[in-house]
C-alpha cells in the first residue's frame, strides 16, 4: 500500500513537472508555422467601431468609444505616483478614463528600471502580445517589432484614428508626423510625449547653504566653481558636526551633461546615441569633440578637488534622493521639476514645505560657449504600439488618442480630480479649489503623477502648477524661455527615417559604442585616464567600436529626412 501511495505521488509529481515544462518550452513546429502564417497575413483590416442602429448612446456619452464595454490588455511600466495619496496618484484618472471611454483596461505592469530589457524579452519570447504595448526607451525595439509584423502599421489610418493627437502635436511641431514616420512610410507607434518640454535637467542649488554663505546663483563656469569652493571651504554647512557634505552631485555622469555640457558647447540632446547635426547639416559624434574633452577635463578637476561627489559614477536616483533628504547636498544636477520635491525632502522643507529650498539655476556660460543655452528636448518619447494580434486595433487606437490628446482628458490629467482639486465653471473651464488648510496640492508636474502610459506636457499643467505651490517653478521656466536661447540644432530623428538595414547597423554598434564612451568618460573624470595623454587612444577605441560607421549611417538618415 505504501509503495502504491509512493508510486502515485511520484507519478503525479512527474506529470506535473512534464506539464509545467511543456508549458514553458518554446513553441512547437506546428505553432511556429502558424506564427509564420500569421505574420504573412496582411495586418487585418480594422473592424469598424461598433455602431449599433440605435446611436443614442453616443449622445448620452460623447466620450464613449463603443456601446458595449470593451476590454484591452495593456503592457506598460509602473508609475512613480502609485504610492502617492490622491489626488497626486493617477488612479482617479484611470477610473475617469474607463467611465469616459467605456473601455476597460487590464494592466500588465513592469518595473520602469528594467522595462527595456523586459519588453525586449517579451517580444523575443514569442508569447502573444498585449493589445496595447509601451515600447520602452529604445526606438529600435519598436522598429524591429513593427518590421517583423508584430505591431499594426498606423499610417494608413492615421488621420482617422488619431485626430486628437494629430491636432495637438501639430500645434507643437509641424514636423511631428514626418519624424515618427519610417522611411517605408509606416508608423508603428504613437508618442505620448512631445516637444517642447519645459522640464529639463539643470543645476539645482541648496537655497539655505547659498543664503548662509551670501552666494548668488552663478552664471558662468568660473562663478559656479567659486560657489562650489565656497561651500567646500565652509565645512559643516548642514550643522550636524560631521564632514559629510556633498558639494555637487547627480544621479549619474550622464545627468551632469545637460546642465554642464551646454556651457562647454556639448550638445546634449537626450538620445541613445551621442550624435548631433550642425547648422551645415553635417552629422558628427559628440563623443570625441574638443568641447567634450574640455568638459571631461574640467569635471576631473572638480573630482580631484573633492567638489564632485566621489560616488558620481555609482550613484542612483534613490541614493541621490537619500543624500538630499539628509541635508547633505549643495548642488544637484536634476530635472527642474524635482526642485520642489527635493526641497520638501530636506529637514527644513519638511518643517516648512511652503518655502523654496532648492533653486533652479541658470544655464552657465564659458569661453567655449558664451550664449546661455538650455538643452531642448525636441524629441518624442513614451511610444505605444498596438499589437497585430489585437482584435480591434481601431478601438485601441482611439483609446490611445483619447488618452494622449482628447481635450477633456487633458483637463483631467492637468487639473486633477474633478470635484476634489477643481470644478468646471459655467463655460466648462476648470476652476481650481483651494487645498485644505495647512496643505498644498502636490500634483507632480510630469503629469497625473507619472502616468505610466504616454503623456504629454501641457500648458494646462503649468497653469495648475502656477496656481499652487510650484509657481516659482513656472516663473523660472517662463523666465528661462524669455532669457535663454535653446539649442538651434537640427536633431537626428529618434524613431522615423531608419530603414531595416540602418536599424540593423544601429543595433550592431550602438550599445558597444555607448559602453565604450561611458567607460572612458568615467575614467577621465575619476583621473584613471588623462584627457590629454589618452584622448587619441580613446578616439581610436570608439572608431573601432563602430563610431565612424554610425556617423555615416546617421548622415545618410539626416540627408534623407531633412
Amino acid at each position, binding site marked *: 500500500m505504501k509503495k502504491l501511495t509512493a508510486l502515485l505521488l511520484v507519478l503525479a509529481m512527474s506529470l506535473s*513537472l512534464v506539464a509545467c515544462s511543456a508549458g514553458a518550452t518554446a513553441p512547437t513546429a506546428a505553432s511556429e508555422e502558424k506564427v509564420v502564417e500569421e505574420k504573412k497575413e496582411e495586418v487585418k483590416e480594422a473592424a469598424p467601431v461598433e455602431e449599433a442602429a440605435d446611436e443614442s448612446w453616443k449622445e448620452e456619452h460623447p466620450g464613449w468609444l463603443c456601446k458595449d464595454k470593451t476590454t484591452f490588455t495593456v503592457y506598460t511600466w509602473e508609475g512613480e505616483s502609485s504610492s502617492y495619496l490622491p489626488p497626486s496618484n493617477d488612479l482617479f484618472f484611470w477610473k475617469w478614463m474607463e467611465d469616459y471611454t467605456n473601455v476597460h483596461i487590464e494592466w500588465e505592469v513592469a518595473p520602469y528600471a528594467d522595462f527595456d530589457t523586459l519588453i525586449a524579452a517579451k517580444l523575443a519570447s514569442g508569447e502573444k502580445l498585449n493589445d496595447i504595448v509601451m515600447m520602452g526607451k529604445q526606438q529600435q525595439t519598436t522598429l524591429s517589432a513593427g518590421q517583423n509584423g508584430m505591431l499594426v502599421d498606423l499610417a494608413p489610418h492615421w488621420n482617422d484614428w488619431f485626430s486628437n493627437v494629430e491636432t495637438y502635436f501639430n500645434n507643437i511641431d509641424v514636423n511631428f508626423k514626418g519624424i515618427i514616420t519610417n522611411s517605408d512610410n509606416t508608423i508603428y507607434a504613437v508618442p505620448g510625449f512631445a516637444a517642447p518640454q519645459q522640464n529639463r535637467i539643470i543645476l539645482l542649488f541648496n537655497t539655505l547653504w547659498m543664503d548662509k554663505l551670501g552666494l548668488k546663483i552663478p552664471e558662468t563656469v568660473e562663478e559656479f566653481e567659486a560657489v562650489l569652493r565656497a561651500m567646500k571651504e565652509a565645512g559643516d554647512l548642514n550643522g550636524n558636526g560631521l564632514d559629510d557634505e556633498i558639494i555637487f552631485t547627480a544621479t549619474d555622469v550622464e545627468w551632469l551633461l545637460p546642465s554642464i555640457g551646454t556651457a562647454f558647447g556639448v550638445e546634449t540632446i537626450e538620445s541613445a546615441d551621442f550624435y548631433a547635426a550642425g547648422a551645415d547639416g553635417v552629422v558628427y559624434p559628440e563623443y570625441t569633440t574638443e568641447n567634450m574633452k574640455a568638459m571631461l577635463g574640467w569635471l576631473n578637476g572638480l573630482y580631484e578637488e573633492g567638489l564632485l561627489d566621489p560616488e558620481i559614477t555609482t550613484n542612483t536616483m534613490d541614493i541621490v534622493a537619500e543624500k538630499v533628504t539628509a541635508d547633505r547636498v549643495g548642488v544637484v544636477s536634476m530635472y527642474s521639476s524635482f526642485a520642489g520635491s527635493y526641497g520638501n525632502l530636506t529637514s527644513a522643507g519638511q518643517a516648512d514645505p511652503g518655502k523654496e529650498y532648492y533653486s533652479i539655476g541658470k544655464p552657465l556660460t564659458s569661453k567655449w560657449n558664451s550664449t546661455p543655452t538650455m538643452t531642448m528636448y525636441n524629441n518624442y518619447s513614451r511610444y505605444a504600439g498596438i499589437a497585430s494580434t489585437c482584435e480591434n486595433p481601431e478601438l485601441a487606437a482611439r483609446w490611445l488618442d483619447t488618452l494622449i490628446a482628447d481635450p477633456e482628458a487633458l483637463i483631467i490629467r492637468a487639473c486633477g480630480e474633478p470635484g476634489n482639486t477643481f470644478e468646471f465653471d459655467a463655460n466648462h473651464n476648470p476652476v481650481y479649489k483651494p487645498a485644505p488648510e495647512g496643505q498644498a496640492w502636490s500634483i507632480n508636474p510630469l503629469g497625473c503623477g507619472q502616468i505610466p502610459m504616454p503623456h504629454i506636457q501641457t500648458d494646462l499643467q503649468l497653469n495648475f502648477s502656477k496656481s499652487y505651490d510650484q509657481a516659482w517653478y513656472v516663473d523660472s521656466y517662463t523666465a528661462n524661455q524669455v532669457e535663454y536661447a535653446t539649442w538651434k540644432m537640427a536633431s537626428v530623428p529618434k524613431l522615423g527615417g531608419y530603414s531595416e538595414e540602418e536599424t540593423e547597423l544601429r543595433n550592431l554598434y550602438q550599445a558597444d559604442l555607448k559602453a565604450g564612451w561611458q567607460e572612458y568618460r568615467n575614467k577621465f573624470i575619476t583621473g584613471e585616464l588623462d584627457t590629454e595623454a589618452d584622448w587619441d587612444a580613446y578616439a581610436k577605441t570608439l572608431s573601432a567600436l563602430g563610431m565612424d560607421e554610425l556617423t555615416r549611417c546617421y548622415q545618410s538618415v539626416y540627408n534623407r529626412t531633412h
Partner: protein
Amino acid sequence: MKKNAKTQKGKATRMRNSKRLAKIRSQIPYWVMLLIPLAFFLLVRYWPMYGLAIAFQDYKIGDPFISSESRWAGFKWFQTLFRNPNFPRLVRNTLAINILSILISFPISIAFALLLNEIRFKKLRNLTANISLLPYFISTVVIVAIIYSVFSVDDGLVNMVIQKLGGKKINFLAESKWFRPLYIGSGIWQNTGFNAVVFTAAISGIDPNLYEAAALDGSTRLKNIFHITIPCILPTIIIMLLLRIGNIMTVGYEKIILMYTPSTYEVADVLSTYAYRAGLENQKYSLSAAISLINSVVNVVLLVSANKATKKLSGSSLW
C-alpha cells in the same frame, strides 16, 4: 534424465525471471522517480537547445527558431564576435575571474572542511558549519547590496575605518583594480560554507580505523591531515575540480551585472554580460546565441581534456 534436467533448468529460469520481475517491480517507484530528473533534463536542458539554431541565422523578434523562412547567416555572428575589438578582453576577463576563483576559493573550501573536521566539540562544529552555510542562501541582489553598503566611498564601513585610522578613502566600487578582489572575496564569503559541505561529507566517510592506527604509530593531527584525510578525499577533490573546470567559461552574470559600472568594464565585462547586453538590451539575439554556443563548446572541450588529464595522472575521473 534429460527431461528432468530440462524441467529443472526451466524451473530455474522461471524462478530467475520471476525474481528479476519482482526486483524490477519493487524498484518501480525508483524508476519513476528517475523520470523526474530525466524529464527535467530532456525538457529544460536538451529540448530548448534547438533554439541555438538562431546563432546561425539573422534572427529577429517574432521569427520562429527554425522554419522554411529562416534567414540563415552561416558563421556571420561568430565572425562579428571575433572581430569585436572587445572580444579578447571579454575572454580574458571570463577566464581570469574563473581561474582566480578556482585558485583562491577552491583550496579555501577544502581547508575550511579540514579545519571544521578538526573541531572536537560537536556542537561548536555544527554551529560553525551552519553559520558558514548561511550566506549561501542570501540572494545575489542582497549580497551586492551588502557589498555596496560596506565598501561605499561615501558612508561605507570599510572607508569609515580607513578614515578613522588616518587613511584616504578608497573608491572600491568605481576603481577597476578593486573589482576582482571584491567579486572573488564576496564569493568566498558566500560560498565557502556550502562548497565545504561536499568535502566534509567525504571526510566523514573516511574509515576511523585509519586514524586510530595512525595514532598508535604516533602520528600528529597535522600529519593525519596530510597523510590520511587529503589522500582519502582526493577523488572527491578531483571530481569537484573537474566540475569547476567544466564551467570555466561560464560566469554567473547576475552578480557581475549588479556589481559592475562603466568604470570597471575593463576588468569586469565578461562574455555572459556581453551576451546579456547584446541580446536583451540591443536585440542582437543571434549574437547572444553565438556567444553562448562558443561558451558551451569551450567548456565541453576543457572538461573532456581535464577529465583525460586527471585520469592519466591520478586515476580519478568523472567517467
